């Protein structure tokens, strides 16, 4: 017999789902019998990131529901079932599939729908909207046969849709009724600059175009006719002409409505019926609909607080400032972007060469920021927003905030001046205090802050500011944000790399003499020596145990094997792509047998031989090198393996020769030394048998070429790789990899895997794309040249070593004896050796 309160949630979009999460967080969810209806066939997904569905076309990537969320909390979820009626007298809701549920309370989170103006012809086939995964599926299917696509509406979502069409390889047009793009958020000057930039990207922009008819095209599916007599032929049309609240249920139930739609709510998100709340894009607060996720989330919280009486938050309006990247172009709008406040002043900075437009709107007395528009470079977004939100006094001559600084100093906000309550990340509602708490609890880099506060995981617009607060806080805690590499070098790894490269420094002595911060008295240490060695290798690629370099190497590099816990080493020859002839396999077996080595197949598709004493290494490698093996660099911070499946040669599903590509790549990048190890994989089709998305660089074959994924990781902190570019041909793929690896080598911190490198990079994936694909920094030819040098100077380190008697001398265990280390003792387990335990060693000694 249940005395629980019957709660029905209508709509399972991002806000409806956020409500449920907040309900669970309140600790009161067990007091409720919860039933959820969602019209869409799948549970809540992240609509803000809808466009990223194209990457993998896998809903999992934008799924919002953690595993087992509904069953674990005893929530009943009806997907693919639309509520058709709320009976407020019987207190029952009825669904299309015939489910009827009694309720005590209702949460209405039905969101909105795209408005399609009733232009004649708007109901033809091949005309779409851009709101749900189903829409995207339909657009993708249509793009297979179409050549041209047009988006009606040049607002924020329209431009996002245009980007999607462009990525689907359509000739893309944007049709806007107003005289400029994003008319709501940005001013005229900004609109012009945005238009220029978007056209540079190959999208045609048509403003002041009023579509009057859609009919049959001559050479395409449709012909659009405009009021000014012009026409446009296109195969696909996407309407993005604004959104309207899905308020039909509320209207039918007789709830209080706004004149132009929307369900009226108060600060607790209650509608005119005290048992019905409305949240998200269906709700009308103070005569405003909020078409952004952050206000929706705030409403969800306010509703939970009021319903469960566990909190006091109210919805009190929200700031509509936005920052986004449209087709790689930074666009930001803050507050009164149009400068409509009486007597306000504005300052504008326009740079036609770099295509940057910035404007700030300030109060009459220059004291407070009222609004801003940033196009092409939105680096100041975070600090400008804080100036406005917290009503902080501006510096005198506020124009300095958007002028490029001549001396490199920044006139941004001092984060100390921000109040603790300042919301740094509006997407995830993370305040300065939250970030500070996270730092106190031990988070000390951006990756940690992201995972424990969720800050900067939405639109990413707040990354720079959150980073500043983080660093500031660390500094205050006496964790000096010392980016010095070590006591010897007051530089970051990146600085040191540039110094070595530019000054052509080739030895550690020279580096110390010129740049040691201990004024030439230091010897270096186990941090800076291997770091310098790795940089020398990336830049000059000399033999790692060359006389001037060997003392810098970690023991693994010095002995060219991985030291195991008992002081023995492992031997791992390269088996490119995992392809090996029977003859070579037999050689491996023979060597293992002759030297009694423990033998195991690795995850990188090769064979690992364990238990070699240092003095045995040369003899073992002599046999291997003579049989045609090369070192596998399993010991180095360098390219490890390129894992592969057999691909189209053998597999019935394969669409490209993944095997050949893997071998080519492994041979190209073998020996490349980098800040940390690098792993790659190539799969022959989307079934992804080589698990490429868990690698630093993953490649998946497509019908048309290769999809390139970057910065994935297995291991301790698994991270799925991000799609970087699609359908590449061989040459472009290799170019991108050359550049990306070299850029990583140039800019990463010591021992920083690619995943953390990218997560800590301001602008993340998009920035990386702009550098590697669009050559934003003008570096690419240099990066390619540097990579070519490394590839050309490759040598098998073991081959060179066994040919040099001087080098071979150092492998003996004792300087004064040919004896062996008697502390290395093995026992047998499963027919192979393993290091003896301490107790076992004692036993053998007493025998």
């Amino acid at each position, binding site marked *: 017999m249940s005395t629980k309160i019957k709660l029905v949630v209508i709509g399972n979009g991002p806000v409806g789902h956020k409500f449920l999460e907040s309900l669970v967080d309140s600790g009161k969810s067990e007091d409720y019998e919860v039933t959820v209806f969602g019209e869409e066939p799948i549970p809540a997904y992240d609509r803000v990131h809808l466009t990223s569905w194209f990457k993998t076309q896998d809903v999992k990537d934008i799924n919002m529901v953690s595993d087992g969320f509904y069953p674990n909390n005893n929530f009943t979820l009806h997907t693919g079932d639309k509520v058709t009626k709320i009976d407020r007298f019987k207190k029952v809701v009825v669904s299309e599939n015939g489910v009827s549920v009694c309720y005590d309370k209702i949460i209405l989170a039905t969101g909105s729908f795209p408005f399609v103006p009733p232009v004649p012809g708007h109901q033809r086939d091949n005309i779409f909207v851009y709101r749900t995964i189903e829409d995207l599926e339909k657009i993708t299917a249509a793009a297979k046969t179409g050549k041209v696509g047009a988006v009606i509406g040049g607002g924020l979502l329209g431009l996002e849709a245009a980007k999607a069409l462009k990525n689907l390889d359509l000739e893309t047009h944007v049709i806007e009724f107003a005289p400029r793009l994003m008319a709501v958020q940005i001013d005229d000057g900004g609109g012009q600059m945005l238009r220029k930039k978007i056209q540079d990207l190959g999208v045609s922009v048509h403003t002041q175009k009023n579509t009057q008819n859609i009919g049959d095209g001559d050479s395409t599916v449709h012909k659009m006719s405009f009021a000014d007599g012009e026409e446009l032929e296109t195969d696909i049309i996407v309407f993005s002409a604004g959104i309207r609240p899905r308020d039909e249920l509320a209207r039918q139930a007789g709830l209080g409505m706004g004149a132009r739609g929307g369900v009226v709510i108060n600060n607790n998100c209650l509608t005119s019926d005290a048992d019905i709340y409305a949240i998200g894009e269906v709700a009308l607060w103070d005569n405003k609909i909020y078409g952004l996720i952050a206000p929706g989330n705030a409403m969800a919280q306010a509703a939970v607080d009021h319903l469960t009486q566990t909190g006091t938050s109210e919805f009190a309006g929200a700031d509509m400032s936005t920052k986004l990247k449209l087709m790689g172009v930074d666009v930001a709008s803050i507050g009164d972007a149009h400068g409509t406040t009486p007597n306000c002043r504005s300052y504008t900075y326009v740079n036609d060469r770099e295509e940057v437009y910035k404007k700030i709107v300030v109060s009459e007395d220059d004291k407070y920021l009222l609004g801003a528009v940033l196009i092409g470079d939105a680096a100041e977004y975070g600090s400008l927003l804080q100036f406005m939100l917290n009503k902080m006094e501006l510096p005198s001559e506020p124009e300095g905030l958007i002028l490029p600084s001549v001396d490199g100093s920044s006139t941004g906000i001092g984060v100390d001046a921000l109040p603790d309550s300042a919301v740094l990340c509006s997407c995830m509602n993370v305040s300065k205090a939250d970030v500070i708490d996270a730092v106190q609890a031990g988070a000390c880099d951006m990756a940690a802050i992201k995972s424990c506060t969720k800050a900067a995981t939405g639109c990413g617009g707040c990354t720079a500011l959150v980073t500043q607060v983080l660093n500031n806080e660390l500094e205050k805690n006496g964790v000096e944000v010392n980016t010095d590499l070590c*006591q*010897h070098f007051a530089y970051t790894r990146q600085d040191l790399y540039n110094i070595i490269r530019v000054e052509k420094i080739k030895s550690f*002595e020279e580096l*110390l*003499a010129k740049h040691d911060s*201990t004024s*030439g*008295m*230091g*010897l*270096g*240490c*186990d941090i*800076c*020596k*291997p770091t310098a060695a790795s940089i020398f290798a990336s830049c000059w690629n000399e033999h790692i145990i060359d*006389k001037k370099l*060997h*003392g*810098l*190497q*970690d*023991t*693994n590099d*010095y*002995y060219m094997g991985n*030291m195991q*816990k*008992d*002081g023995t080493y492992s031997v791992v020859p390269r088996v490119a792509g995992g392809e090996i002839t029977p003859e070579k396999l037999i050689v491996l077996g023979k060597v293992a047998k002759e030297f009694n080595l423990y033998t195991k197949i690795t995850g990188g598709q090769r064979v690992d031989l364990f238990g070699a004493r240092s003095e045995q290494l040369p003899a073992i490698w002599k046999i291997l090198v003579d049989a045609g093996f090369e070192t596998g660099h399993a010991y180095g911070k360098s390219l490890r393996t390129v894992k592969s499946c057999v691909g189209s040669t053998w597999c019935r599903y394969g669409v490209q020769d993944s095997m050949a590509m893997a071998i080519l790549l492994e041979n190209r990048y073998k020996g490349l030394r980098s800040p940390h190890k690098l792993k790659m994989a190539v799969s022959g089709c989307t079934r992804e048998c080589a698990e490429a998305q868990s690698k630093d660089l993953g490649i998946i074959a497509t019908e048309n070429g290769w999809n390139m994924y970057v910065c994935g990781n297995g291991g301790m902190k698994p991270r799925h790789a991000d799609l970087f570019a699609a359908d590449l041909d061989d040459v472009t793929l290799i170019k991108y990899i050359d550049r990306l690896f070299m850029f990583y080598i140039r800019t990463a911190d010591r021992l920083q895997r690619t995943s953390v490198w990218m997560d800590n990079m301001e602008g993340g994936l998009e920035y990386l794309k702009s550098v590697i694909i669009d050559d934003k920094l003008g570096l690419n030819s240099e990066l390619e040249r540097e990579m070519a040098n490394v590839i050309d100077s490759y040598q098998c380190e073991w081959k060179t070593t066994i040919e040099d008697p001087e080098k071979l*001398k*150092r492998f*003996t*265990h*004792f*300087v*004064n*004896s*040919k*004896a062996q*280390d*008697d*502390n*290395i003792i093995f026992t047998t387990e499963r027919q192979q050796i393993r290091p003896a335990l*301490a107790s076992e060693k004692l036993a053998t000694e007493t025998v």
Partner: protein
Amino acid sequence: MTQTNKNTTANKDDWLSICQLDDILPNMGCCALVNTADEQAKQIAIFRIISPTGEEQLFAVDNYCPFSHANIISRGIVGDLNNKIVVASPLYKQHFELSSGQCLEDESVFLNSYAVRLNGSTVELALSPLAKQQQKKA
């Protein structure tokens, strides 16, 4: 290896000749095998440090790493930390001061250190602390 001296037996103050200076590469270590007074074989890591001003220094400590229980100290990277000349154990990277054998990360742990000198071009080692320990035990 210019010399093998498997049968060297050490008395308290004996200087044992180990190898030629050139057998040890600058700013690196090597491992010597010596027999102690009670005929036990002992592994000792000897380091040759050349300061930036060109001064030669030799140090000798146990080769056995108390953290990893493996004979590997001689293969560590040498350097200086807080003005102390140290070696970093190659497995778990603890630092030991070469002159005293003291572990910088854990005060209670140290390596025995030994007297070592250059006699002409020959590196010589004395096992005094070892002898002391033997006496204590007895």
